[in-house]
């Protein structure tokens, strides 16, 4: 198990890093990597689905968790699943979410837009899904986890055992130690399939009206937005709401994507021309009624990004940025409008734009991204300085509105913006493991000044 020096990139493809990469075969050897003490900073790397630099560690040691992929226990009475940190959500679906004869089954309570993420990564980034307003984030459903620390300890952390470290590790970006395994509380649903509705809306006010009307009866909600539309049509798009359909089962989605982008085109396939054509066509997909209802597997609703493997290559060799922020309720309407206006004015953006309301369930995570408000997420093809200028403009809007930016998708926020968005930072610092650090944590100044060299 010798580390190999190599260059690697994160999902967005903009940022690169070079350093030692090691793939421990089991939790014991993973924990040993933190001892001795390591000469260079260490960070864990799961499936490489974070867009920016939270899992990059130039000059340091990257611990790939792909071989920590064993299930440890599942209790079909309680729904408690214990597995190692490298198990992917896709594997949990395939193994655990098999439908019973009556259509019922065990479901991961919270899933992000791709099932190809590791459990460790889902905890470290405290990922959210379309049901945040009903179920909170991933961390809400973690019962306990095992954390390896560089002092040689392997700690069980839960709401009652090492609770401080537990809360710091959920959303803690891998900086509190190495997550070896976790126990998740799965959720029994009476039907694995989803009943869903898509409804076209004409502007941002219609979005808020639809959302208010849907929150109670529909546990999964999100909207696609036409990021090119401005003026009176600012914020137009398609609202999606879904809920489990009792007694109707659904087979687990496949463990790998069936088709994949084989190589990066020389220039981004996502550009002003293709974007305009796509958005115009997509807005019309619901036909004259502007509404579509169906009952189907959750696959297309939950994992639109998994239809095509390696889709990030479509952005060409220069890669792309992703931006996601949440604006608190009191500023939600105007802050979101400001963001969308800035994007439409710049004429940048992509097909993948998601607008969604976060609820008030609240995560145990000290540094978790989700908080009550409205969140906007979208990609930007890397156009160099133009894109960075736009990202800075969006960052300003978020700061003014007292919102926060999602580290898993961030490339460029300043240390000041991070500190303002995450007021628990000083409390979080007590739980940092001195061996752990990432390009992100160094960039936004998470480590106390005296520890920095």
């Amino acid at each position: 198990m010798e580390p190999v020096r190599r260059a690697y990139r994160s999902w967005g493809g903009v940022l690169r890093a070079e350093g030692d990469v090691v793939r421990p075969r089991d939790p014991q050897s993973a924990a040993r990597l933190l001892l001795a003490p390591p000469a260079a900073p260490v960070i864990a790397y799961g499936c490489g689905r974070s867009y920016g630099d939270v899992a990059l560690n130039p000059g340091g040691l990257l611990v790939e968790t792909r071989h920590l992929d064993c299930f440890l226990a599942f209790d079909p009475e309680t729904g408690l699943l214990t597995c190692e940190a490298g198990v992917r959500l896709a594997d949990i679906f395939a193994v655990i979410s098999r439908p019973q004869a009556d259509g019922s089954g065990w479901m991961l309570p919270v899933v992000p837009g791709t099932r190809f993420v590791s459990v460790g990564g889902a905890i470290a980034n405290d990922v959210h899904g379309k049901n945040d307003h009903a179920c909170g984030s991933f961390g809400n459903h973690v019962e306990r986890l095992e954390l390896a620390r560089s002092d040689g300890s392997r700690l069980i952390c839960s709401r009652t055992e090492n609770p401080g470290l537990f809360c710091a590790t959920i959303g803690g970006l891998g900086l509190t130690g190495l997550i070896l395994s976790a126990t998740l509380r799965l959720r029994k649903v009476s039907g694995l399939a989803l009943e869903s509705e898509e409804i076209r809306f004409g502007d941002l006010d219609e979005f808020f009206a639809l959302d208010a009307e849907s929150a109670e009866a529909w546990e999964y909600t999100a909207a696609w937005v036409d990021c090119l539309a401005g003026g009176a049509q600012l914020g137009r798009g398609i609202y999606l709401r879904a809920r489990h359909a009792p007694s109707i089962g659904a087979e687990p989605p496949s463990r790998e994507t069936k088709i994949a982008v084989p190589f990066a085109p020389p220039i981004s396939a996502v550009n002003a021309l293709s974007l305009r054509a796509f958005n115009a066509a997509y807005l019309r997909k619901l036909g004259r009624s502007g509404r579509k209802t169906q009952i189907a597997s959750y696959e297309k609703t939950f994992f639109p990004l998994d239809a095509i493997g390696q889709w990030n290559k479509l952005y060409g060799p220069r890669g792309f940025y992703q931006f996601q922020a949440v604006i608190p309720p009191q500023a939600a309407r105007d802050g979101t409008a400001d963001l969308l206006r800035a994007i439409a004015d710049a004429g940048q953006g992509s097909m993948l734009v998601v607008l969604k309301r976060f609820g008030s369930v609240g995560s145990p995570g000290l540094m978790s991204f989700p908080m009550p408000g409205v969140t906007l997420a979208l990609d930007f093809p890397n156009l160099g300085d133009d894109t960075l200028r736009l990202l800075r403009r969006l960052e300003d809007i978020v700061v003014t509105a007292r919102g926060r930016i999602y580290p898993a998708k961030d490339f460029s926020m300043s240390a000041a913006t991070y500190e303002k968005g995450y007021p628990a930072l000083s409390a979080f610092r007590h739980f940092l493991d001195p061996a752990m650090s990432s390009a992100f944590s160094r960039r936004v100044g998470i480590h106390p000044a005296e520890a920095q060299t």
Partner: protein
Amino acid sequence: MTLTARRVAIFGATSDIAIAFARRCAEARQRLVLVGRDRAALDRLAADLSVRGAPQVEVQEADFARTAALAAVAENAWSALGGLDVALIAYGSLPDQARVSADAREGEAALALNFVSPALLCDALAARFEVGKAGTIAVITSVAGDRGRQSNYLYGAAKGGLQKFLEGLRHRLFKANVAVLDVRPGFVATKMTAHLPQGGPLWATPEKVAGDIEAAIAKRGVVLYTPWFWFGIMAIVRTLPRPLFHRSKL
């Protein structure tokens, strides 16, 4: 599939191809015997396979380098589930040619683990399968056994010898209706090849190879090149005229 779940023994169960194969079996609700050297690794895998759906998983420790004990290894695996339907022999090592050329003891150990041991284990298993007149013995050899090449001829000779052994065993077991499958993988991204630059079009995942093995067992295949294109590559390597072959770096 019969009414009772298929019984599968995997020797060298913590190799990457074996793990991927065992997971397929578990998810198809088959009963498993895992045989290997590292008890902790076997227990970890057994827990994983139980969650994945295996109704029964037995774990047995064995050192395959100790050839004198192989008869007992076969007997224990056979009796753990009251007989077997499939035996997969998946252990081996990939020695460095320069090192085994320089150190006869290392060379001997590599020949034993890659040829003597699996051959003897096959024979011990064959006697039991023969009586039952059913089942499959699958053995992972290698494309390296197809032609001796300067870069790894000791490993190639062991695997090539094993291929010949399986050919004879298949002949013997034909009357008993026992299938003998010779699995010849190309480059597979496993811990055995972790020191090589893995990646590129010729490299396969253990999951891909395990799926091919499963399919070949189902259709009672004889020799499996996995992935399939190695059949073509090795046909060329085998038939390359010697003057050309000797100038190559293979």
